[in-house]
């Protein structure tokens, strides 16, 4: 169905159910209990997970399939945000035209940058994209202030024309909506001592994320996706067979740029402002970390990575010293203070430190990310079942396969 085989269709259904159930899944603990701080079922965070999921999915189409490591993807996200906010200012508060424009401008922008950057590969490609992104960032901060509003960031104003919308006499800023349904509208239901929030913004982002997931699933399974993987495994051999790889890599680059623009547009739809810091290279680094942590080159990996990072970020920043103090209150005083001091370095403000350590560990020991971790655990259970009836288990078989030779770019 939908041009997918049975297995992929099942995967899509699972993802659909997960996105529908997110408000329940992220709210497992009752309100008012000690564990309630691990809940994450409020719209803001869920939207962020969906949006960064889209961003990471797009990045994965480029890096996961072709192996080109871009360090400048945040530029496309920033461009998407700016164009969406401009659409809100000039045309209408409806999010549809804003998101469409965000995708178009990000696509065009990535076409130009990709056309130039893809003339080189390996580290040079990374540095070219980095240079372009830093240039966009610097320009957005300084010269392009009429368009980007510099340091303050682009915001809505009461005096904006908004030609399609009815005249606004309320004296307050209008809200983003989709055909009249406001993005921050939400239905709250109290059940079993838990407060479930079903917000329009989250379901809108989730629907788009699902669509984005479907497209990336189709790309992964298409001959085009196969071609991209061939480029990753051996570009030289492809060239020797008389194929030009450039159109393929460029297409992948533009697609991932459009994904980033879509994420930027959505971000602006949820909160209509855009700032230059979204384009900084550390923001590009974040999406790299998300994809790697989840499992680069896999379908679900980037989404998982984005979800895990945004969730943990939220939890970790909530754990401050007094929370730690209450956790370790059972320890003797001197020890308690030491333990709290050590832990407080890694929580609250220290979240980037934890993230960096986590990222290093994953790159070193688990290059396939969370997905590979899951597979290894699954294999562990499988092997236990197989072991009794013979030696012919997976590990033995793997030994006879040729070792994958390390890829050296020189």
């Amino acid at each position, binding site marked *: 169905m939908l041009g997918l085989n049975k297995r992929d269709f099942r995967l899509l259904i699972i993802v659909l159910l997960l996105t529908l159930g997110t408000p329940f899944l992220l709210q497992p603990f009752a309100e008012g209990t000690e564990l309630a701080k691990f809940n994450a079922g409020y719209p803001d965070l869920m939207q962020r997970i969906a949006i960064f999921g889209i961003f990471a999915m797009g990045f994965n189409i480029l890096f996961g399939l072709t192996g080109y*490591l871009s360090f400048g993807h945040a530029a496309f996200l920033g461009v998407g945000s700016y164009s969406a906010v401009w659409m809100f200012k000039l045309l209408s508060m409806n999010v549809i035209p804003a998101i469409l424009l965000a995708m178009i401008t990000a696509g065009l922008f990535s076409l130009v940058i990709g056309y130039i950057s893809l003339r*080189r590969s*390996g*580290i040079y490609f990374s*540095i070219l994209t980095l240079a372009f992104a830093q240039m966009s960032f610097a320009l957005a901060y300084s*010269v392009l202030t009429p368009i980007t509003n510099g340091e303050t960031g682009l915001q809505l104003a009461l005096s904006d024309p908004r030609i399609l919308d009815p005249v606004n006499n309320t004296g307050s800023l209008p809200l983003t909506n989709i055909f009249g349904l406001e993005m921050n509208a939400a239905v709250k239901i109290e059940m079993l001592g838990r407060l479930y929030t079903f917000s329009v913004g989250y379901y809108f982002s989730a629907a788009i994320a699902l669509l984005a997931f479907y497209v990336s699933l189709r790309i992964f399974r298409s001959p085009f996706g196969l071609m991209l993987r061939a480029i990753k495994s051996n570009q030289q051999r492809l060239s020797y067979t008389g194929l030009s790889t450039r159109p393929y890599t460029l297409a992948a680059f533009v697609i991932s740029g459009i994904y980033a623009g879509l994420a930027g547009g959505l971000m602006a739809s949820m909160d209509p402002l855009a700032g230059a810091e979204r384009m900084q290279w550390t923001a590009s680094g974040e999406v790299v970390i998300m994809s790697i942590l989840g499992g680069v080159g896999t379908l679900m990996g980037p989404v998982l990575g984005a979800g895990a990072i945004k969730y943990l970020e939220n939890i970790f920043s909530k754990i401050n010293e007094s929370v730690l103090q209450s956790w370790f209150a059972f320890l003797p005083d001197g020890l308690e203070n030491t333990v709290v001091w050590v832990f407080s370095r890694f929580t609250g403000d220290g979240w980037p430190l934890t993230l*960096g350590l986590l990222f290093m560990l994953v790159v*070193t020991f688990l290059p396939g990310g969370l997905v590979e971790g899951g597979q290894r655990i699954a294999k562990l259970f499988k092997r236990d079942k197989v072991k009794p009836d013979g030696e012919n288990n997976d590990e033995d078989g793997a030994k006879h396969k040729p070792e994958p030779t390390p890829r*050296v*770019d020189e």
Partner: protein
Amino acid sequence: MDQIILQVINGLDKGSAYALIALGLTLIFGTLGVVNFAHGALFLIGAFCAVTLQRILNISAQTVDPTKTDFLGNPAVIKTPYVELWFGPEMGAAIIDWSVPLAVLFAIPIMVAIGVIMERGLIKHFYNRPHADQILVTFGLAIVLQNIIKQFYGASQISTPSPEVFRGSFDFGVLLGYEANAIIYPYWRMIYFAFSVGIISAIFAFLRFTTFGMVVRAGMADRETVGLLGINIDKRFTIMFGIAAAVAGVAGVMYAPINSPSYTMGMDFLVISFVVVVVGGMGSLPGAVLAGFLLGIVESFASLNEVKSILPGIDQIIIYLIAIIILLTRPRGLMGKRGVMED
């Protein structure tokens, strides 16, 4: 004309920092073939070695002076740094005043140790993995180091003044026959420039004129053959990594008075120094130095008001623009060898 001279010398101090960082990056890349994204963090640690030494020297003994009172009427507490107690007030004050130059000596062993630990503990395991993995793990390390610094020293800039003697400015214009104050240049920046030239020459002399350097150069050219000759090249490359870390570190120490260090300075310099390495040519030591100074000077020219009025915003992007043009037209950079990291 005086404007041109002024911009050239203005570019020299930033160019010196670029050149020193890029030199270290190139040393690591040339010997071990590793693209080290954590190099900016080493520069950062160097700058915070200066901060640390300044704080250590200012550790004070507290004595209560009953004859004086503070504004609340309590007996005044007088803080005297221990160095002043041990070495006498004048000598002690001088030591504190000279804390930045002294921090160079303090930083070298620390940086070498950090470098060696980094190479043996982490980067060694990444030789046989793709360049992308090396970039990623060192990028992660850079985040970790940066945030460790942030956790211990906070997020604000910490002022680390240069010694009193060097705080003034030197009037260059008078020497060249211009009127007074036409071309003035702070003493410390001159010292930074001289210092970096000294370090760069020392590195080149070390590689050129010592047996150790000769072996390292041979190893850079053909690691395998050198290994087959029975030389433990890995050990030497580890030491070179330590030296490269120390170069970045002392560059950071001496830069501290020019720009008060904060935890983001590593990342700020990292991106630019990669651009410098690429412009100079991947793996070329003279290229890295030349490109460092060149880009420093070009950047300071671009910030001239005359240039900015023709091309607004050019000062912000000139370095990246040059990098893009160089990469597209001459991918091996100014002085790079053919075939290094080319496709």
